């Protein structure tokens, strides 16, 4: 049991660092969701199934979804802004 506890702590540290070191935003969100799953496993191994369940539903479902949607919205707005600018330039020319 102790080995499992040490192993999961190291794994949490590694995945957490990996999330921070990932620079591409979309990969980072997927990494964050994976990190949430590992965190839930840690709670489970430390005998906190209630917290683990909350962590799974929030960390692996709700949080990445909101990040993904926000990123998609920002990218779309950027694309559209570029498009509008091009249209205006064409009109001016």
């Amino acid at each position, binding site marked *: 049991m102790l080995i499992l506890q040490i192993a999961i702590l190291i794994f949490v540290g590694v995945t957490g660092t990996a999330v921070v070191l990932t620079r591409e935003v979309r990969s980072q969100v997927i990494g964050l969701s994976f990190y949430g799953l590992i965190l839930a496993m840690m709670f489970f191994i430390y005998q906190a199934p*209630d917290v683990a369940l909350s962590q799974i539903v*929030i960390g692996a*479902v709700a949080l990445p*979804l909101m990040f993904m*949607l926000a990123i998609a919205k920002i990218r779309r707005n950027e*694309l559209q*802004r570029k498009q509008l600018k091009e249209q205006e330039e064409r009109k001016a020319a």
Partner: protein
Amino acid sequence: MNRTRRHVLFFASAVLLFGLLAWAMHDLPPFGHYRGPYGDVINATTVYERHITDAITAVNFDFRGFDTLGEESILFMSVIGVTTLLRRQKKEKKKDGPDESDEIEKHRAPEPSDAMKVITLGLVGPLVVYGLYIVAHGQITPGGGFQGGVILATAPLLVYLAGDLKTFKRITTHSVVEIAEAAGIFGFVAIGCLGLSVGAQFLANVLPLGETGTILSGGTVQLLNIATGLAVAGGFVSAIYSFLEQTIEMRMEGEKD
């Protein structure tokens, strides 16, 4: 601030923080040796006094039920904040239909495959049952109103993933969603007032406790779980809908069109 000075600042504060942490951890009880009396007291008395086998639910919805009411209100207020922030702005318009000439439409995700549609739509039923099970068995097994509520709220998401936008919109914009959210909060307070009405304190567990280990055990805890489940499920569905509405339907209007 240049790079070297930033590094110096970082390492100095890291060493300081590590020192303070080591000092603080020095006096902690050894790993796995619990010293406080409260956990043992709750473990020893919950089953006899409240007929609840999941002590954590007993703590959340009975011993410190008032805190949970606060937490539920935080969620309620956050959902109101999200829906207010993501409302339709002056510069935005709703998309009428797919516009093929639109450059943005080319970046749209492809239609989900038939296999994905079948699997995701097939999972909706079991997911709803599982969510209801988690809400209803909070006092017996891990889980409860909060966890079950979020699980229930992911059901419309599966419908969205299956590409069935029409059904997704019909579920999420249904007035039942908002009514459930409000009824959850109201129900929590109303059950709390039940204690006041018989002369006990707010949120006192005044209902018959039932037989330990059955679905009807726990008195008010069971009802509070259902109220929380309603509020959380309704709140999350509203929040998810406002996010998806912004992403799928809203477009900026040309500023000089």
